[in-house]
């Protein structure tokens, strides 16, 4: 449904994105994940035909961003990073204007606006002036605007920013519900958001795509994505030597646990050696309080991918 090919964009001398390529299938929810200034907004502005790339291209629903921007604009609902609102209009007037410029014919306009108001949960404020609304409601007016006329494709730039936790959950639920019928790209710098809502994630950092996969696969793909955690009571030095005795151990950290003589070791191993480890510790007369494995959270993977530090 969306095909992005080697997009590069400069702002003057500054390179904002470089050779960004990815695809989005029909009905998929793609998360564009990256820290601030990664180039998420820039990518979205190009896909919505707000501005052209310096080089590269993209096709949205089969239409080319260079040659057929009007077709793309007709099919796409866009929620920019800062909701584009007219603070002196009331919510209904604002959505009415949006419906008109989206080309919703007069007889269907009222219905279309009501549906958008319903989806974005704006019923209580529809006669209120946009400028007087709270940040959360403004964000929802922006979302209502994007959803108006039920576009096939939704491009949402950080849709949950500025919302309170309950609203965040509501918006995520809404986005999930919209997936399937709609093709959605959403950007975020919040990891749990991708894990919760997206079927696939493209991680972008300093303008370049650094990884692309399902949230689950991404975790799995990074081998060594499991580590072993041990809590041992007794002589820490002895314990440390026992662990180091195994050639499979690749990395070892230890930290004293407050108010006890227990030490927590975190280690990465090439194969699963838990059973041998447990035996060795016990035969040395140490007390084993805990032995478990832990997988890396997306958060850590993300950090790894974006800081280029070795995890495994």
């Amino acid at each position, binding site marked *: 449904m969306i095909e992005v090919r080697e997009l590069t964009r400069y702002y003057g001398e500054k390179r904002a994105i470089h050779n960004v390529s990815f695809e989005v299938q029909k009905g998929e929810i793609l998360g564009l994940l990256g820290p601030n200034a990664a180039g998420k907004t820039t990518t979205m*502005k190009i896909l*919505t*035909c*707000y*501005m*052209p790339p310096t080089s590269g291209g993209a096709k949205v629903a089969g239409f080319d961003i260079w040659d057929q921007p*009007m077709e793309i*604009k*007709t099919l*796409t609902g*866009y929620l*920019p990073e*800062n909701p*584009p*609102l*007219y*603070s*002196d*209009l009331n919510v209904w*007037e604002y959505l009415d*204007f*949006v419906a*008109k*410029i*989206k*080309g919703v014919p007069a007889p269907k306009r009222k219905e279309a606006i009501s549906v958008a108001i319903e989806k974005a949960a704006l019923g209580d404020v529809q006669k209120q002036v946009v400028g007087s609304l709270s940040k959360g409601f403004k964000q929802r007016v922006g979302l209502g*605007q994007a959803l108006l006329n039920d576009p096939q494709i939704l491009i949402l730039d950080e849709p949950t920013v500025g919302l309170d936790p309950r609203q965040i959950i509501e918006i995520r639920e809404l986005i999930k519900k919209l997936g399937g019928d709609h093709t959605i790209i959403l950007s975020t710098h919040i990891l749990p958001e991708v894990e919760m809502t997206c079927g696939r994630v493209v991680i972008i950092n300093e303008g370049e795509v650094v990884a692309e996969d399902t949230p689950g696969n991404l975790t799995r793909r990074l081998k060594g994505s499991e580590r072993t955690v041990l809590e041992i009571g007794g002589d820490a030095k002895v314990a440390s030597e026992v662990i180091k005795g195994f050639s499979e151990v690749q990395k070892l950290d230890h930290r004293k646990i407050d108010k006890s003589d227990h030490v927590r070791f975190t280690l990465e191993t090439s194969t699963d050696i838990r059973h041998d480890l447990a035996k060795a510790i016990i035969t040395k007369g140490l007390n084993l309080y805990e032995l478990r494995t832990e997988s890396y959270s997306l958060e850590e993977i993300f950090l790894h991918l974006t800081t280029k530090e070795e995890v495994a």
Partner: protein
Amino acid sequence: MKKTLAVFQKEIKHFFYSPIAYIVIAAFTLIAGIFFYLYLSSFVEAAFMDMIRSQQFRSQPQRFNINLQLIRPYFWNLALISLFVLPLVTMRLYAEEKRSGTVELLYTTPLSVGNIVLGKFFAGIFFYFVMLIPTFIFMGILFIYGDPEWGPVLSGYLGLFLLGSAFISGGLFISSLTENQIIAAIGGFGLSLLLWVIGWAANYSGPGLSAVLNYLSIINHFEDFAQGVIDTKHLFYYFIFCTFGVYLTFKSVESIKWRS
């Protein structure tokens, strides 16, 4: 066309939802009213003095022409007030969209640059028309108490309207270049003033250049309208002027969109 109308209606709402519109209309009416009063009283005084003089010397009273001696200079006056006030009307037209980021809405919905620019241009003209309405009342007073000719009044308004549209097209262009309303207002005023005084410079330049400058001068073309003459030459000038102003706005929007 429908989308141009949507932009037009939205702009009209912005005008009338903001206190600036009422301040601008009130200021325009007040200044226009004061000048009207001054012109009227000096006209009446002159006519009255002449009547006394003619009685004293038993000569024929001079014929005072209200069109020539009151209405015509008054139109010039309105043109001058418009020069000062219209930048306040055009300043927000584009700059505010850029400042608040609503250009992102306009540029990512299926609106053409033409829809946006023309909607805004006609909204500016409509607002100017509303601004002129109170002056109809002043003119009405002349028709109640005197008998001016209709023709020059109508042609004067046509001229004023065309002149205003030309100012608006220039102001809109300046507004499209910046996101700062103050800069847009000052720039719009500067451009209008320049086009106004360019005719004066003609007096000090060689014959070739002087003809060009005289032609470019926005106010030289107004003269005939104020006198009651509608010349297609001047209609053509204002038409071209507005088209050019709108075209430049169009180009600036397109190119800035391309770069930003």
